[in-house]
């Protein structure tokens, strides 16, 4: 899915830039191609430009430079109401003076649809989000989760091909959020709509999306499917931003046959997979995922590189154990192990040896 050519491109950003004040670029050179039916998430910290991109696509902001295309035609000069893009807002933006049914009927009314057809579509959309009995209520009488469903139904009721969602689950509690994540993904796949989803919650991005675009500093840092994003981050921002990550700082000694020899700051030498380091002498951040680190000697994989570590803290989290270690001068080195009957619970103060495979250890930019 990630190898989309511009032939099946549905949404395209080409060299798009955006500045609000004429001095700083909020979006710097954005290029993005989305095929039809894809669920793409724009993920990034606040101020990274993701929401601005969404607003440019919806038509509420104009691009300072570049071209945005929808279904092959440039939409730069098309006003928002003619773009036919459904949108779910962060605070739902349900019209408080209308009932739920009137809210849903609104996009159909402005399209001059007949009354019977309207009623049928509203009913179908309400049933779709399992809110059939709530048509006569006002938005204020619904809970956050129910309002969320209505907002979704309203964005879908006029059958747009593209739906934009701007942190739609931000205001919900954790359990409801997880439930809605699944519902939205299932609905999107069932209806075959294309979705651009904006969030700053990485779990949401990973669980829902076909592809995730990680934004920082007005650029897409990496655009990849969730598994690739997590396991093969292309730079240290992505490695830090997605999931938990251990970093060790050091200097590249040599790069041979796809293996980089890195000298950590305390003198230890380790083998790493070079990702965006190119020559010896460069500073680097070595990144290792906590769950790829092994301390049980019996399970240590073949050819693993080992390091000495001191246990600082052991946290029992139910399904997993989270252990904080001091490794090569870093006090925040965390490992995660599954709670299994034969798993050793490490006591703080003990000295252990930890190890990992060199391909799990990625040398990234400093």
């Amino acid at each position: 899915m990630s190898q989309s050519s511009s032939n099946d491109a549905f949404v395209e950003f080409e060299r798009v830039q955006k500045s609000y004040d004429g001095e700083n670029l909020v979006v710097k050179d954005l290029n993005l191609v989305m095929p039809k039916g894809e669920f793409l998430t724009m993920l990034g910290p606040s101020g990274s430009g993701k929401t601005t991109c969404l607003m440019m696509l919806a038509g509420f902001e104009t691009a300072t430079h570049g071209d945005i295309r929808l279904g092959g035609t440039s939409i730069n000069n098309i006003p928002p109401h003619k773009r036919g893009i459904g949108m779910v807002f962060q605070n739902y933006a349900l019209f408080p003076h209308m009932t739920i049914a009137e809210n849903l009927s609104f996009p159909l009314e402005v399209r001059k649809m007949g009354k019977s057809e309207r009623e049928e579509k509203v009913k179908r959309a309400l049933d779709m989000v399992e809110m059939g009995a709530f048509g006569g209520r006002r938005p204020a009488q619904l809970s956050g989760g129910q309002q969320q469903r209505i907002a979704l139904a309203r964005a879908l009721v006029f059958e747009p091909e593209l739906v934009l969602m701007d942190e739609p689950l931000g205001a919900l509690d954790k359990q409801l959020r997880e439930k809605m994540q699944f519902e939205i993904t299932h609905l999107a796949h069932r209806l075959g709509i294309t979705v651009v989803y904006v969030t700053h919650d990485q779990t949401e991005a990973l669980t829902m999306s076909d592809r995730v675009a990680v934004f920082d500093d007005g650029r897409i840092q990496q655009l990849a499917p969730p598994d690739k994003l997590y396991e093969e981050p292309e730079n240290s921002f992505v490695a830090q931003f997605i999931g938990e990550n251990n970093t060790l700082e050091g200097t590249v000694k040599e790069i041979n046959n796809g293996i980089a020899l890195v000298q950590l700051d305390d003198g230890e030498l380790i083998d790493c997979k070079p990702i965006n380091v190119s020559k010896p002498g460069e500073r680097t951040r070595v990144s290792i995922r906590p769950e790829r680190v092994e301390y049980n000697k019996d399970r240590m994989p073949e050819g693993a590189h080992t390091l000495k570590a001191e246990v600082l803290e052991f946290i029992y989290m139910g399904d997993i154990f989270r252990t904080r270690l001091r490794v090569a001068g870093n006090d925040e080195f965390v490992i995660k192990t599954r709670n299994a009957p034969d798993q050793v619970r490490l006591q703080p103060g003990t000295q252990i040896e930890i190890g990992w495979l060199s391909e799990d250890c990625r040398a990234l930019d400093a």
Partner: protein
Amino acid sequence: MSDTTDTGPVLAADGTPLKRSLSRALRRQKMRALMLIAPLLLFVLLTFIVPIGQMLFRSVENDIVSRTLPNTVIALQDWDADSGQIPDEAIFTALAIDMQAAAEAKIHTRVGSRLNYEKPGISSLFRKAGRKAKKWDLENDGPYQEKFIKIAKGWGDPEVWRTIQTYSSKYTAGYFLNAADLQNGTEGPEWRPENEQIYITLFKRTLFMSMMITVSCIILAYPVAWILANLPSRSANLLMILVLLPFWTSLLVRTSAWKVMLQQQGVINDTLVWLGLVADDARLVMINNQFGTIVAMTHILLPFMILPMYSVMQTIQPTYLRAAKSLGATNWTAFWRVYFPQSIPGIGAGSILVFILAIGYYITPELVGGTKGVFISNRIAFHISSSLNWGLAAALGSILLVVVLILYWAYDKIVGIDNVKLG
């Protein structure tokens, strides 16, 4: 909970009913709240509610006749006004006693002018009779019927006596009848002669002009409030200062400025003449009429419309408009179907404020209203300070109060008072 499902009140831990122990627990809080509002409550009670109550009471109070002419009032009780006969000697004797006492105390003219409100001409009857009555020897100077009629023929008119009889009770609806252009006729209330009817017209004009002022305020204030609510806060604050600026100038100055602007030799007329749009001998009459009053009052009351509108519009999030547009609504539809309905509470609050202020406005219509543009409040002020007919002023004021309350009630029925928001 299970033990409270049976009948009887819920009990607290010590066996007292829960309601009672709750109210005891809250009593301290209530007392403290009462103490906090007590100063204002006393102030309002003493300086506002009591004087207003007294003023309103004046609209029905009428003890001047029975106080000044006690014997006459008693003697007149059995006299039949419809017989067409003038009262007998006994009644005239009673009047002579009362008149002498009143003339000595120099209060006979007050009764005269009070009754003159109801029947013009009575005032002079009392003045003339009082002058003579002072010198009478009451025991021996009778019969008084002839004497009174000799002093002034009016004393022989049964209608005069009817008026005295009608207004001899302690309370009267006379002021209210008067305020509604009615009078006490032979068969109950009847319309006053065509040329004496002024108050109904004035009430109608006051209501109509207040509505016109409210509507012009809505039309002018809405776009301003919208801009205020949608500008970045720095520029919004600047604009807000401009909106409030008129409050820093005296009301009189602002009203006089309109006189300068609108009069026939004023700025606007001069400009129009200079531009050749209006002939020099056909200058527009824009002041001392309804137009002038509406213009000046709209200007003065505009901030009271802008402020509530602004504070309501500020709470309408811009995402609503965006949502409407993303759903396919044009700018106009998005405004009319989504933004406007949410701004109605602001319009409602502003309208009530402006309308109620306008309906009782006095100084501006007095200055720029001429004769065609004055309000009922100008008439009330006239009766308070010039004609000294406080009872009539009080009756007009009461009617105005009732009209406002009725309109308020109607507004609540039609729009709903909880649909009014000041922010």
